[in-house]
């Protein structure tokens, strides 16, 4: 009875506030006016949805942790969404997926959880996740995302046309950064084709771009010759170009990109560049931190790394290392066409959730309402994570930061004093819905990099999970990675590598079994 009464009240409230949560404020009224023009069917469906009284969410540390003001964040979220009680289960970040697995196995599932694409695909195939396709198709959220181009990222997470998780942001991806001072030193422009790119790497390798009189620089470096997770090729786009070493669709059917001529050509390009000394040989076994450190120390000139905030980080770190911090963000060369936007982790509703429509509407949809709730997910709680008050941070240090009244800035980090909060769960530059009154806290460097990426990217593909994938892909990927490393390092020719791939029972045969299962 109480629930029914609540729902009636909600329906009444929604006719004036439309789809932006159970609370109301001026911005939501604006949304209501816009939404009133949406089709009647959507309204009718929405009106039947009841706001849940209590939900349990399972999140990793991309949501504020307890020492970082989680309680204040959740309290504000409850206020904005109208959900009376939001329980949070937040395991240690590094052990998140272990705990998710244990929780799923225990049968005591949360209503909502964050899942990366791999886990989303796997759990969706096992029936753990609620199919939110209809809810999304009939939602105002889709309208808002479509208006901002964010719907493409959501569609990228669909499995056979069904949606089981809602991303809060774009996945982001890598762009290639070139040292401007090195380009100036060798008298070259930002390359636009592969041939020009190789010429730049040659000049970085051979023409003493750092001017120290020694032949001690490389053209490019990265963590591994192939990435450890999808989309695998994002650290070497100029070499891989149209090649992809794993499963992808071609003319509507699943194929293994490793078996293609494009992949063979890509491996030959990398092998040639390695043999010529253009690629840092230590790329084989170094981590991303090693690669960053080398770039900051001036050991190589072309660095493909994450767009957005990382551009600012690179700039700051180059400055701290007494390097010229100016970097040229390279648009994808002609042969690459577009960088790859990786699939984003998504908010999923479990199939045991009692009121999935309500959770979708009042929890997931409000996260991207373009107004107050999205602002909360983007920047956190005023006075805890951000402020507009006049104040001086770090006054007793060498680098005090002074802010005038009304100037938006991050508060001092509660867990790591001395650093400021820059964002909450949603990276403002990766949002799928335009945030009204965004204070624009991103630096120009970060913004330029993110804009370039956004204008030149395509979505990575979501690969469904099959039994064959589970059984064979571990061995297959290990073999592929070994062959790639050996070819690049010149220990095998491309033909020898593919001959071994075809003769090894864990090579082509496994690949074909997985492809067949995907095409069933």
């Amino acid at each position, binding site marked *: 009875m109480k629930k029914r009464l609540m729902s009636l009240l909600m329906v009444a409230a929604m006719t004036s506030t439309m789809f932006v949560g159970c609370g109301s404020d001026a911005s939501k009224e604006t949304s209501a006016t816009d939404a009133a023009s949406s089709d009647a069917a959507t309204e009718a469906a929405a009106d039947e949805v009841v706001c849940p009284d209590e939900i349990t969410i399972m999140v990793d540390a991309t949501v504020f942790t307890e020492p970082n003001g989680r309680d204040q964040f959740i309290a504000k979220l409850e206020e904005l969404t109208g959900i009376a009680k939001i329980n949070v289960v937040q395991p240690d970040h590094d052990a998140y997926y272990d705990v998710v697995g244990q929780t799923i196995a225990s049968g005591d599932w949360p209503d909502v959880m964050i899942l990366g694409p791999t886990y989303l695909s796997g759990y969706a195939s096992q029936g753990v996740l609620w199919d939110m396709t209809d809810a999304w198709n009939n939602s105002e959220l889709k309208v808002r995302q479509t208006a901002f181009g964010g719907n493409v990222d959501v569609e990228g997470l669909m499995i056979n046309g069904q949606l089981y998780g809602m991303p809060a942001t774009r996945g982001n991806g890598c762009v290639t950064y070139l040292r401007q001072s090195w380009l100036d030193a060798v008298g070259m422009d930002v390359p636009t084709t592969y041939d020009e790119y190789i010429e730049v790497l040659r000049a970085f390798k051979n023409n003493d771009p750092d001017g120290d009189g020694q032949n001690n620089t490389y053209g490019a470096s990265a963590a591994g010759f192939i990435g450890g997770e999808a989309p695998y090729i994002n650290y070497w786009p100029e070499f891989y170009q149209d090649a992809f070493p794993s499963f992808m669709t071609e003319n509507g059917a699943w194929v293994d990109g490793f078996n293609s001529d494009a992949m063979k050509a890509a491996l030959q390009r990398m092998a040639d560049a390695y043999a010529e000394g253009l690629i840092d040989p230590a790329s084989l076994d170094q981590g991303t931190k090693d690669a960053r450190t080398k770039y900051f120390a001036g050991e190589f000139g072309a660095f493909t790394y994450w767009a957005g905030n990382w551009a600012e980080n690179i700039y700051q770190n180059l400055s701290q290392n007494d390097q010229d911090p100016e970097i040229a963000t390279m648009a994808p060369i002609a042969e690459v066409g577009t960088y790859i936007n990786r699939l984003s982790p998504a908010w999923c509703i479990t199939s045991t959730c009692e009121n999935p429509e309500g959770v979708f509407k009042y929890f997931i949809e409000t996260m991207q309402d373009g107004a107050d709730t999205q602002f909360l997910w983007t920047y956190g709680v005023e006075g805890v994570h951000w402020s507009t008050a006049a104040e001086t941070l770090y006054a007793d240090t060498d680098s005090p930061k002074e802010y005038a009244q009304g100037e938006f800035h991050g508060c001092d980090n509660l867990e790591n004093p001395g650093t400021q909060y820059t964002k909450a769960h949603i990276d403002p530059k990766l949002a799928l819905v335009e945030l009204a009154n965004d204070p624009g806290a991103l630096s120009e460097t970060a913004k330029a990099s993110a804009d370039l990426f956004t204008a030149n990217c395509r979505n990575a593909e979501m690969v469904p999970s099959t039994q064959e994938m*589970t059984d064979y*892909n571990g061995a297959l990927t290990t073999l592929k990675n070994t062959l790639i490393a050996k070819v690049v*390092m010149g220990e095998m020719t491309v033909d020898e590598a593919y001959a071994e791939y075809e003769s090894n029972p864990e090579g082509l045969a496994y690949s074909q079994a997985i492809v067949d299962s995907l095409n069933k």
Partner: protein
Amino acid sequence: MKNKKLFLKMYKYKGFYLMFLPVLVFAIIFFYAPMFGIRFAFTNYNGIKTPDFVGLDNFVRMFGVPSFWKAFFNTIQISVIKLVLTTTIAVVVSILLNEIINIHFKKAVQTIIYLPHFMSWVVTASLFTLILAPTSHGLVNTMLINMGFINENEMIYFLGKESTWRPVYYLINIWKETGWQTVIFMATLAGINTELYEAASIDGAGRWQKMRYITFPALANTILTVFILNLAKVMNLFESAFVLQNDAVLNTANVLETYIYYQTFNSGSIPNYGYTTAVGLFKSLVGCVLVLVCNQWSKKVRDGRGIV
């Protein structure tokens, strides 16, 4: 009657049994309860769904793939060679240390060679990756260039070539673990009666003869004990191999535990824990057999004293 005696005895020593109780509970919870997971080795893991019983299918599959056998033989080879090398060198170093007369110098050397043992494998791997890097920043390659052994275009990728990976791996293990292993040998050496050496000197024995006829025989039992104890653990090889290996050397560096890791985390999907549990169970069984064999061997050479 016998049982009554036993219960009386237990009652009499109830304090000891009470003290032992936490250990028993700990062992049951952390050692025995997880063993129920072994059942997954005979199933097809289905996530939330009930695992399908597949009998020995996982084992059949395991024995039929070359990468498993490669990892199995790599494990045996790497572990045994590592054990022989580190034990031998630890014995030699212990004897040399024992010969040092200046006590301060001896202690200083001991401390220096112990220290690497306390470094984590992650730090050790980072350190040697830097030292052995095939770039102008790699210490060893720079030295080889400066000494004229190689030129700048011939730098050696010690950790990236199958031919050099294992020797380097053994060297790193020797550097890291020799000092620690000398502790037990040094203790044995300290226990040798000095009168034996004095008597040998009076009989005209030189340093080498004293070492051959007094030190070695006194150490022999300890060497064998250490060897047997470590031989039982040869299947447990993960961290040191994992942090030093890379894609290019997996043919020679992939061991059973890293094989399980790659099978699990390279699948790009929710892994089939049934298969990896089967591999783990096989590894445990081989380890168990080794322990039993070593136990018998230990009983033979140590006057009936086993290791379990």
